[in-house]
């Protein structure tokens, strides 16, 4: 999609509740790239270890046919290498295309390197929002914001890789600004 067009605010924000907040799209916390690289490496190496174990088991089962475990090992090595390369190279590209914006209209999230989408949640439709932190996220002081709506397919929308305090600030703004009453 045309990236420049998207930067414009959808409606004129004269008496907007978020005049002070920037209406430009914002990137995530840069530390999230490192977090994604690390978690990607962990899963890649975990898979590598599993393949190693599997090839040892195969070697014990097919006694005398050395090429079968070697083949498994070679494929596993190739796969692990690919995954490691992916874990190193993907997160920066994902980071470049992962942006969010909060304005008078609502929260908008843009994401995707290959399949791209932009989702918008009007503030009035926010049911509740919560911030969670995994062990790695705690170490990097990052947080995941989950926004719940009364919808079906997108009943919950997440942004991961925000700075923890940003996530909390965003959650408080979303919850404070939503209109009370019925949303369905």
């Amino acid at each position: 999609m045309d990236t420049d067009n998207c930067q414009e605010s959808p409606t004129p924000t004269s008496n907007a509740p978020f005049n002070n907040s920037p209406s430009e799209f914002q990137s995530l916390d840069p530390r999230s790239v490192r977090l994604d690289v690390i978690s990607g490496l962990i899963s890649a190496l975990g898979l590598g270890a599993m393949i190693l174990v599997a090839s040892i088991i195969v070697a014990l089962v097919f006694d005398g046919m050395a090429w079968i475990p070697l083949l498994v090992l070679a494929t596993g090595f190739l796969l692990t290498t690919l995954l490691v390369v992916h874990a190193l190279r993907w997160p920066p590209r994902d980071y470049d295309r992962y942006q969010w914006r909060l304005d008078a209209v609502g929260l908008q999230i843009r994401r995707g390197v290959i399949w791209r989408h932009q989702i918008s949640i009007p503030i009035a439709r926010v049911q509740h929002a919560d911030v969670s932190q995994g062990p790695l996220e705690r170490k990097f002081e990052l947080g995941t914001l989950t926004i719940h709506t009364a919808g079906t397919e997108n009943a919950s929308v997440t942004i991961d890789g925000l700075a923890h305090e940003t996530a909390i600030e965003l959650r408080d703004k979303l919850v404070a600004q939503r209109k009370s009453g019925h949303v369905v």
Partner: protein
Amino acid sequence: MSSENNSGTESPTEPTGTEPTQCNLGDSVLASFGRLHPTSVVFDIASHIRSALVPAAIAIYGVAQGDNRVLIFGALMLVYIIGMAAVRFLSFRFRIQDHELVVRQGIFFKRIRTVPVHRIQNINSVQNLLHRLFNVAEVRVETASGTEPEAVLRVLSMTKVQALRDAIADSQAPSFRTEPIESTDVTDSPPSISTETELLQIPTSWLVRAGLANNRGMILLGIVFWGIYQFNLEERVYWVVFDWEKITEFVKQLASGYAVVLYVVAGVLFASLLLRLLSIVWFILRFHGYRLTRSGDDLGISCGLITKVNTSVPRGRIQFISIQQNLWLKWMGFSSIRIETAGGSTQEEEDAASSVASRWFIPVIADADIAQIVGHLREGLTWQPNDLDWQPVSPKTSTRLTRKGIAISAVISIIGLAVSQPWGFLVGFGALVPLVFVAVRTSRAMRYARTDNGIVYRSGIITKKTSMTFFDRIQTLTIGQSPFDRRWKMTRLSVDTAAAGPAQHTIQIPYLSEDFAENEYRAILGKASAQ
């Protein structure tokens, strides 16, 4: 939404008496805690007996083997089921108090559930033959939350059902409602709750047409087969129907060239005719005496020949309206209307009542009457499909879909060639024409329109579906692009609502021109967040 309010267990158990009762329930049957109908025990057992079928089968098998211990076990099981049903009946109480439906049940584990009346989406009642014998009905109270009904009242006498409906309608008086849409137009038509106007009655001749147009016969056939297997009749049935010796003899008699083809064609024709007849029967069984009424903001449906269904839908809860028409219906000048409300049953587990309330909201309607009915479904809604500003999808869509069709036929050709050496690829060529035809027609059929209330999407070539949702119902809005979309400068616009999905048409509009989709995205977003 309802999780905050309606599943609390710490709710008031006793009436405080200090608060004045806002609704006039002084002489109502429901002011004090009411019980279910005494026959509830029977129906409760009936509903739980299904879960006891397997142990029962084991017990019978055991007895046949001469093992009496199993019989004792079965008897205990039966006593347990009866006992539980009695306990459930004795401990079950419900009432309406201060705009809340309070349901109390349980002896050891007391459970009190309060459902705020304004959260109630549907009140469904189902009466099968046995229910009608005792003049009782099974009532389900549904809110927007999730998958299962908030309260199941199995079973109530019909007078109590009516009293419950009236009490809930009273509590849902417009002064109490806080629906933003309805507050605007109250001035020119003050909603009166008691007057019930009839919107639509479906005559049997329409149901016959609907039966012809929809292939529901398979369902009845399925029920017949289920019955055959359930009672282990299959061997006997096969003996009668498929006496292979006779059949082979018969075939041998006429197995002279083209006669066989003729008989096969005749057989297929007969079978499809039979299926359509069954389909008519299904429609008449299900929707005989269909009546759609409106009182104030509540729509009511009652229908059914043997199992009578009675359901009400507050029109402020309608998320999604879908008008659908297949080729047969189009030819006869009829359509069907489906609606979606939030929550209720999901598609997998829908009972007769909620199925009528949404999936078969109006099973068949003359095209001329659609505008008038749709006008009743939402305040300020008019339906003039010809006056809408219909926008096509990207003009490149038919090219894109045609190329896709060509690619598919190429793949079929290659597979065909692999299967059968010299002429196998012809299958792919044969598939090319219909594939391209479908591609072109599909892309032409897709239309999008934005109205004052919401957005409308139309698609489909065999079954034309025109669906609309409203700005105040839009929960999230998404535009997205796949790599292919980027190459063709197209965008998919999708809308998420709280609708549970039985209308089988979602507003996900693919192949829109990039710029158009972005403009619409912004326009819809502005309207959706304003409401």
